[in-house]
């Protein structure tokens, strides 16, 4: 008997200037399955999904829905066929409310006026049914990424989509939110919806999906049943070699104090309380200190305060003994601070600049790259290709690729290359491996450890406990703007950290909040 496929993408080829993003790829989605799509950064996953969603037109190949060939020219066509997509970088209107975003494009009107009551009822019912908590009247610009993603999912459900595409939904979520999302996806599956799921986290694939299709450099590598495979096998299939999933490192030899933070207070942008309430800690040369915590407990603001993106209202910050509490950002950078920012599109890149222009964003003013105010284009080009080679940044047109057209993971690699190559004394890295494939994570972790071994101080902020346990020499847990515990990763467990992160325990003797 023939298989029951809802969607078949047969021999899809899609080219961009300088690169075949998809080269003869076939993907068959069974009705009611969760089908994972795995591949290195730039392998062509987002492109393939955008073809299915009608954002791009394939040069070759056909798409079948329920066995019949269909033409998907734009997202409206996709929508009519019941296909919905949550994009890698969300596509919401920031200054609209949640409800307005959900109904955008399919609004009900009466005599030309918006009718939102029905819509509100439907949205609330959906949100209830699937446990997708949202506040319909909040502005998108004010809500957390987790909630933004729930809005994107509700958008698909509101349109009664049956085929759901999730492009790296977990990259921006906290571990708790990831668990919730996995449950929600399983719920969809039980209802008979079919799901295409892109992620770089193999454990997630093993946990929820039925089958997995693997791409490598735009080519189809095969489709496997999850029940009969392992994480190691998957990563080998995707990268083409064995990948070490844990980093090994020498014991830490902490040296002089590089960063010293004393009683730091930083106001919050979203509420009237302070986001950081009198935090103190040191980071020494040759150690990786990790700030762990659930998103929204002040880690972002703490980093903004240290790096100068946000004004500090109390306390002080010292870099190599020098008071930099109120120093301009450029001065901190010259004094030896590098910063891999949390939000790569907001801070990390000028998306309309080329890759090479972005690679010198922190150094264009140095004598190496300019003379008398005129940029030395040849030096910039040479430097860019050096970084591109060393950090394996893949793109269609090399140094002159516009950053906007690069795949998410390769954008991240470009930022990391730029910040590490500055050879800083202090590297502040926020979620550095967000959106990277396992091979790239292995490499970046190796680089961070190498930095440490060369006597640099690394302050790592990560939501992923695996990464925290793997890399750090010391762990600080942050809860509601305060540091509630300090741990040696060798003498603690993920479970214990979890208790501190949730505010159920704290070390300084103060009464823990009963939750």
């Amino acid at each position, binding site marked *: 008997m023939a298989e029951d496929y809802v969607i078949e993408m047969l021999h899809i080829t899609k080219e961009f200037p300088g690169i075949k993003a998809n080269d003869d790829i076939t993907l068959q989605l069974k009705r009611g399955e969760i089908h994972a799509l795995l591949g290195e950064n730039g392998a062509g996953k987002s492109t393939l999904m955008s073809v299915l969603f009608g954002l791009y037109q394939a040069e070759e190949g056909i798409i079948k829905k329920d066995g019949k060939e269909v033409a998907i020219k734009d997202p409206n066509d996709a929508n009519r066929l019941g296909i919905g997509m949550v994009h890698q970088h969300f596509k919401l209107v920031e200054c609209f409310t949640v409800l307005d975003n959900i109904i955008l494009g399919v609004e009900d009107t009466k005599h030309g006026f918006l009718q939102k009551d029905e819509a509100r009822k439907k949205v609330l019912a959906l949100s209830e049914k699937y446990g997708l908590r949202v506040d319909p009247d909040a502005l998108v610009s004010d809500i957390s990424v987790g909630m933004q993603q729930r809005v994107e999912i509700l958008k698909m459900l509101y349109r009664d989509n049956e085929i759901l595409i999730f492009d790296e939904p977990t990259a921006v979520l906290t571990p708790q939110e990831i668990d919730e999302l996995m449950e929600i996806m399983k719920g969809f599956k039980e209802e008979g919806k079919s799901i295409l799921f892109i992620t770089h986290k193999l454990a997630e694939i093993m946990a929820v999906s039925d089958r997995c299709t693997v791409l490598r450099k735009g080519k189809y590598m095969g489709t496997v049943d999850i029940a009969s495979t392992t994480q190691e096998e998957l990563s080998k299939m995707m990268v083409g070699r064995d990948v070490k999933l844990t980093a090994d490192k020498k014991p830490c030899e902490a040296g002089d104090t590089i960063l010293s933070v004393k009683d730091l207070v930083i106001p919050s942008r979203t509420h009237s309380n302070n986001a950081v309430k009198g935090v103190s800690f040191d980071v020494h040369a040759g150690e990786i200190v990790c700030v762990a915590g659930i998103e929204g407990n002040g880690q972002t603001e703490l980093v903004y305060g240290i790096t100068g993106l946000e004004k500090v209202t109390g306390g002080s910050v010292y870099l190599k003994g020098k008071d930099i509490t109120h120093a*301009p*950002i450029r001065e901190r950078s010259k004094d030896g601070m590098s910063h891999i920012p949390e939000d790569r599109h*907001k801070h990390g*890149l000028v998306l*309309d600049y080329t890759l090479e222009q972005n690679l010198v*964003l922190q150094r264009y003013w140095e004598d190496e790259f300019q003379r008398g*105010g005129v940029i030395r284009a040849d030096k910039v080009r040479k430097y860019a290709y050096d970084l591109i080679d060393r950090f394996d940044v893949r793109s269609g047109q090399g140094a002159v690729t516009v950053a906007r057209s690069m795949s998410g993971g390769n954008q991240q690699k470009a930022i990391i290359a730029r910040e590490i190559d500055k050879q800083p004394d202090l590297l502040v890295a926020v979620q550095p491996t967000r959106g990277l494939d396992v091979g790239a994570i292995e490499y970046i972790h190796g680089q961070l450890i190498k930095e440490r071994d060369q006597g640099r101080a690394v302050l790592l902020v990560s939501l992923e406990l695996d990464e925290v346990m793997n890399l750090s020499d010391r762990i600080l847990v942050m809860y509601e703007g305060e540091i509630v515990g300090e741990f040696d990763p060798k003498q603690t467990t993920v479970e214990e950290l979890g208790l501190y992160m949730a505010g159920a325990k704290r070390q300084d003797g103060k009464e823990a909040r009963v939750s």
Partner: protein
Amino acid sequence: MKVKKPLAENQMFISVLASVISIIAGLLFGSVLLFILNPSKAGIGMGAMLTTGFSSLDQFGKVLYQSAPLMLCGLSVGFAFKTGMFNIGATGQYTIGAFCALYGAIALQLPWWVCLLLSLIGGAVWGIFPGLFKALFNVNEVITSIMFNWIGMYLVNLLLANMPVMLASAWGASNSDRTAALAQANPGAVIPKGGLDKLFGNSSWINISVFVAIIVAIICWFILEKTTFGYELKACGYNKEASRYAGISANRNIVFSMIIAGALSGLGGGLYYLAGTIQYVLEKKTLAMGFNGIPVALLANSNPIGTIFSSLFISYIQVGGSAMQPNFSSESTDIIIAVIIYLAAFALLMKGVITGLLKKSMKNKDDKEAKA
């Protein structure tokens, strides 16, 4: 063997083609409008619009002469735009620039190049204000520049009205509603013709101003594309947060970019009024030249080199438009010019369409070849 780039990927080719198609569409639509307004004279009107600029060397000289201030106002708007700001104040800066140039020429009896410098400084000063207000108090530059347009215009009228020496009446003419003709007041302040008048059949319009403007355009291009200063300005324009993260002072750049934008418009005013063919008339409306900088910049996608061509084009149809006058009112020629410019600005939209069409036709060809 060198592989030729497929046409569909040749950005330069597509941009030029898109502009040409949009311009033709604009002209066609313009003819339809002419026909509706005055059917019997439509043919003559359109003929005048299309051919006047090339009809005589004198008229062509006028096209070049008018394109210089247009080019500078376009550069001004485009330059600010690259830094993420909308300089709708070009006309105010232009007016102040014109005044400073004329003051230097008539009241101070300075040579032309010093007067041009004065116009540049005057425009720059007028550009500082919106820049400072934005940088210090985050006041939207559109609001401040519109206010400074009116302040500039009335200020100049007020100053002129109180400076009898500046007016034509002080130099042997009868009218006191305009500034003195430079031929009488100070022939040394007239921008030299550099022998071009010989080439252009003794055209009274032509002088070296268009070359000055082209050199300025090239300098703008160089600043924006080749210098660290331009790199910073554009970074601020594209992504303010990221440039802050990179330690670039956005406020400093906002002010600098508005100073430069103001200086460009101001110089435009100087070039226009120091030609000696035009006198500044005291009127209660802002000058159109500065506003025309906006379509010039849009048409060129804010690219300084593109601005050279877009200003020549707009100047050409403006000269053509004024030749339609007896048959068509100046209002209706304005409408037609606006329609043409408006459609020409669709070039960006056309770009996408052309790329799509080229790709499709290439694919069809490939398919046919594959079948054969």
